[in-house]
């Protein structure tokens, strides 16, 4: 037996394509966000609330990642926005190559902003960078306040944490301060917004956040 040194990252292949995506998005001056959360945290609902507001100012397209069905794409597409559906066929996350082929099929020159809804999952999407400007994660308060320490990578990799379904705060045992404190222990730079897609509470702050981040990247 003899040893052959390799020293290669298993994510290396994805990272290379993510770098190509980043370069491509920058070439078209296209701002992009990757939305991640567990299933049912409200990613699609957030998009449905947010897109009409964004479409007043920006030319937006959405990439919808789902394991099965085109339901999310239909909900979002009903708003009149261009939607590109990726069905991963069992794969639990979007990877850079899926985004890469989507970028080749979208008319990037006619867009200002690309929003990517990842597959609902608190683990895998965090390990697969896509090459976007920023990662945003949603945690719905019905999921429990213990999630930051249980799924640290997602919190570490996200720029913004949206605590969704805040209208239910009196109905669930969710300690807001504990969740925020533990999220900041993992990622001291993380920004945190409280929001309810149902009542619209916090929606303004989220739109402002996008505007600010957009300007800092593309302004």
């Amino acid at each position: 037996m003899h040893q052959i040194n390799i020293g290669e990252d298993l994510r290396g292949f994805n990272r290379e394509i993510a770098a190509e995506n980043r370069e491509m998005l920058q070439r078209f001056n296209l701002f992009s966000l990757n939305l991640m959360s567990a299933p049912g945290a409200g990613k699609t609902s957030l998009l449905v609330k947010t897109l009409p507001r964004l479409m007043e100012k920006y030319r937006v397209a959405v990439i919808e990642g789902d394991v099965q069905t085109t339901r999310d794409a239909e909900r979002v597409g009903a708003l009149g926005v261009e939607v590109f559906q990726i069905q991963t066929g069992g794969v639990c996350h979007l990877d850079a190559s899926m985004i890469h082929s989507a970028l080749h099929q979208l008319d990037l020159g006619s867009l200002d902003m690309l929003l990517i809804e990842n597959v609902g999952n608190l683990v895998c999407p965090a390990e697969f960078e896509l090459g976007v400007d920023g990662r945003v994660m949603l945690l719905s308060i019905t999921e429990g306040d213990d999630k930051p320490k249980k799924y640290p990578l997602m919190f570490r990799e996200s720029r913004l944490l949206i605590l969704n379904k805040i209208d239910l705060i009196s109905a669930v045992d969710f300690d807001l301060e504990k969740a925020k404190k533990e999220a900041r222990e993992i990622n001291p730079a993380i920004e945190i917004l409280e929001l309810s897609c149902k009542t619209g509470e916090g929606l303004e702050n989220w739109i402002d956040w996008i505007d600010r981040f957009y300007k800092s990247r593309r302004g």
Partner: protein
Amino acid sequence: MHEVALMQNLLRVVEEAAEKQGGGKVKLVHLRIGEMAGVNTESLRFAFQVLSPGTRVEGGELEFEKIPLRIKCLSCGEDHCPPELTFRCPRCGGANMEIISGREMDIEYIMMDEEGDSPRAPAFSPTE
């Protein structure tokens, strides 16, 4: 279960490396897996069982080396293994911490059968 995608990548890299050596069987793949890498080693083993038949690694073994999370304060330089995933400097209270180790998901080396030795590639190169 993104371990299947990672395993496909592993097998591709390992096959290429074995090919460069002139072929032969890969007996062992040694991986370094960080404490904070989002990967489950049991799922990796499962993916290996499913995907390795028909490759040079078929019948080989996966070996995992666990790498602890280690972070360094960018303000004062203190580095430590944080208890309970707290990214704050215990010395100066700084919050700007760099991860030094613990995110690894690396194929460190493979072990190959002697019969795979290529005359042009000595088993132990003094330069390596």
